[in-house]
């Protein structure tokens, strides 16, 4: 929330020096693109909470720009900053994981770890949801299961999955898409045979 608090102050500071158009451009960008930016970041970070944090950070960086420039370029710049911030987070996460794996402990400040992922009730819910989804995966053709779990669960890039399983990248993409569609409809409560009739690979 610190970033959110900082934003208006930053805005005022910049407005003193820059034409009002700058502040307007950024706040318009925020109104029109925030949901998109969070959606984009959530895919990369796999956490909506973190996506929101990174998005906030990106806007703050944007406000530090001397000149806003063309709206389309500004938007591109916003996504560029956000992408880099997300990469930083992922890198940090990897380091953290390695440290934990080696049995080192990582001190966590309780006051700052107010994340959704630390909420036990939410964690339980997430675990239940995950095991349900894994159950739906079992209903899929074996090859489709294999492709999806290699790519999504083990984090193998699609190109590499294609190489390992001796099929085209296009096929890998189709399997993954099918698995997602299938699981999505199943988790909405559509019966397995209905889904199969409606959705083709």
């Amino acid at each position, binding site marked *: 929330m610190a970033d959110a608090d900082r934003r208006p102050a930053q805005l005022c500071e910049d407005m003193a020096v820059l034409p009002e158009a700058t502040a307007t451009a950024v706040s318009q960008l925020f109104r029109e693109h925030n949901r*998109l930016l969070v959606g984009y970041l959530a*895919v990369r970070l796999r956490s909506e909470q973190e996506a929101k944090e990174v998005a906030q950070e990106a806007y703050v960086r944007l406000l530090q720009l001397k000149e806003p420039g063309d709206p389309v370029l500004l938007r591109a710049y916003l996504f560029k900053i956000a*992408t880099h911030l997300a990469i930083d987070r992922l890198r940090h996460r990897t380091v953290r994981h390695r440290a934990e794996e*080696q049995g080192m*402990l990582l*001190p966590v400040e309780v006051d700052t770890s107010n994340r959704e992922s630390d909420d036990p009730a939410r964690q339980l819910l997430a675990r239940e*949801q995950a095991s349900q*989804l*894994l159950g739906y995966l079992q209903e899929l053709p074996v090859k489709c299961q294999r492709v999806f779990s290699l790519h999504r669960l083990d984090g193998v890039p699609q190109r590499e999955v294609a190489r390992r399983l001796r099929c085209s990248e296009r096929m890998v993409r189709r399997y993954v898409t099918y698995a997602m*569609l299938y699981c999505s409809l199943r988790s909405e409560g559509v019966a397995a045979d209905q889904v199969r009739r409606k959705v083709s690979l």
Partner: protein
Amino acid sequence: MSRSDRKISDVARLRDASEWVQRLNEPDAEAIVDDWLRWCASDSRNLPAFEQMQRLWNAFPAQNPHTLHTGRPVTALKYRGTLAALIAGVALLGGLAGWLALRYPQVLVADTSIGEQRHVVLADGSQLDLAPGSEVSARFTPARREIELKRGQAFFSVAPHALRPFTVHVNGLSVTAAGSEFDVRSGPGSTVVTVRAGLVNVAPGASQSAGQTGTVVESAQARAGQRLTFSSSTRRLVLANIGSTAAGSWRGGTLEFVGEPLEEVVETINRYRQPQIVVGPELQQTRFTGTVSPAEVRDWLTALEKIYACKVVDRGAAGIFIQARAYNIARN
């Protein structure tokens, strides 16, 4: 309309959304952001569909390092670590300890400056409150949880783990607990362990029993409400019943002392504030019982003058001196 009557166009939209989720997840996603934004703008139902697929994508359990973020090390990894340790131990014949030290290095958990207090959650779920002017390091291996209190004071709430003992090393002592709450304080002349809940075992540390023959310290146990004091001069452990509320009471801002040498009391207070308080040598072993609030230490000093035959001299930044009256008279 039931769920299964979903239109073909809806399914097609979800299909597109799923493709976008995959494409945006690739390393070069930045290049296609514009295309994606155009797709989102082309129909107001596109972004909700994208969000639905993105949530689904994220809801799958993470297994690789890039996505693991709240998870503990996978059990398989731990076993692999243990097996590797075994092989290395056989190969090195005695080099195991050194190898373990490399494999599981000691890391700083936290250190606090004067007046600073911190709460830390460790990787195993145990928690500790670090008092001002303190420092704690830790080394966790698959078999043990080892903490070192290098200076100051800390209150531990240990996550129960019967097969992985939790030991605090302090001034050559090993304080071992399994699912207890206890406080450890390292003072100038003594080490004090106070138990709030559960059972704690205090034993001479490995280095002490091996290196200093002739000064063997027996181990002792303390239960809730008990305190074990190890004096570095007598080299003995003394057990006392002081009540379970005293342990860790400093976390609430009140320092509670039960029959402790003034030297220890003042050393504790000094971790909270400047300027430092200095106790004259003839008063250092005088016992004090009572509570002190670091914020109102002046009141305490005034009271001290009335209770004991002492005089408090404030020398500004140089410190506040507690001197015996008799001593003063003799010098003047």
